[in-house]
């Protein structure tokens, strides 16, 4: 039986169609993340810890971990890996549980953002 950890019944019709793998095939059958929902612009960073011997990462998780050597938002990871957002959220959630990545900044500074920051953003937009 083929294991989902090395799944590559992946076939490509063409570039636009993408890989013919159901999203849940990439997430080991999980459709929903277990933990608190991650914001689409939460910033993630690799923890630098070695992958524990018993943990087998999927190819997508390995790529994700490699990107997270520098800070990455969830949305940027999905874009860069060309995976649907929901799939990335589930993969990230597992890496968080395993302590391989960390949330550097959970979400956009929401309800009351720092007005000084916003004024700076306005100035930079004007100068664009």
């Amino acid at each position: 039986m083929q294991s989902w950890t090395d799944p590559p019944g992946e076939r490509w019709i063409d570039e636009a169609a993408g890989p013919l793998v159901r999203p849940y095939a990439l997430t080991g059958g999980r459709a929903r993340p277990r933990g608190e929902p991650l914001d689409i612009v939460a910033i993630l960073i690799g923890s630098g810890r070695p992958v524990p011997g018993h943990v087998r990462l999927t190819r997508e998780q390995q790529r994700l971990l490699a990107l997270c050597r520098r800070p990455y938002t969830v949305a940027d990871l999905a874009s860069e890996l060309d995976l649907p957002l929901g799939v990335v959220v589930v993969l990230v959630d597992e890496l968080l549980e395993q302590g391989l990545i960390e949330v550097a900044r959970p979400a956009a500074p929401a309800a009351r953002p720092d007005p000084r920051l916003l004024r700076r953003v306005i100035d930079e937009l004007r100068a664009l």
Partner: protein
Amino acid sequence: MSFARSDDGPRIALKILVAGGFGVGKTTLVGSVSEIRPLRTEEFLTDASVGVDDTRGVEAKTTTTVAMDFGRITMRDGVVLYLFGTPGQDRFWFMWNELARGALGAVVLADTRRLTASFASIDYFEQRDIPFVVAVNCFEGAHRYSLEEIRDALDVDPQVPVVTCDARDRESAKHVLISLIEHAVQHSVPAPG
């Protein structure tokens, strides 16, 4: 080994939503002001679409993926402004809550020929106390109404900015974002007392 690159990844991520009816120019606006990036999300086939897509014989919940408008404006010191176009069709409402959480604010793009298409977005942001501006995309051939007429028709609060724009024009799109952030600054100042 040297890593002398300016892009060290985001340090502060700010999220702005671009909402509005189908075909109102969301993709155009995001593209004219930001660096667009490919982004896909799952589309859950619900009752609304099951009649359209043939899902006979498929027992598990079926998902397919759709493209989303997504753009980035990278600023100094790791500040990155992220723009997300909110999917217009009703079957994407479930995504709005996820997108709206923690958003700095929203642009509601409107077309004077179909103002009613903006009502749902306006209600959504009003109810959640998310600062928003209404940007009327001036399509060629569409009758020009005064901003007051449009404000009356949309019935938005007096403090909500209503501006006109040309979504294709970078300066105009920048002006829309600046109006929104200025409004968000006002919004972030706690009311006295």
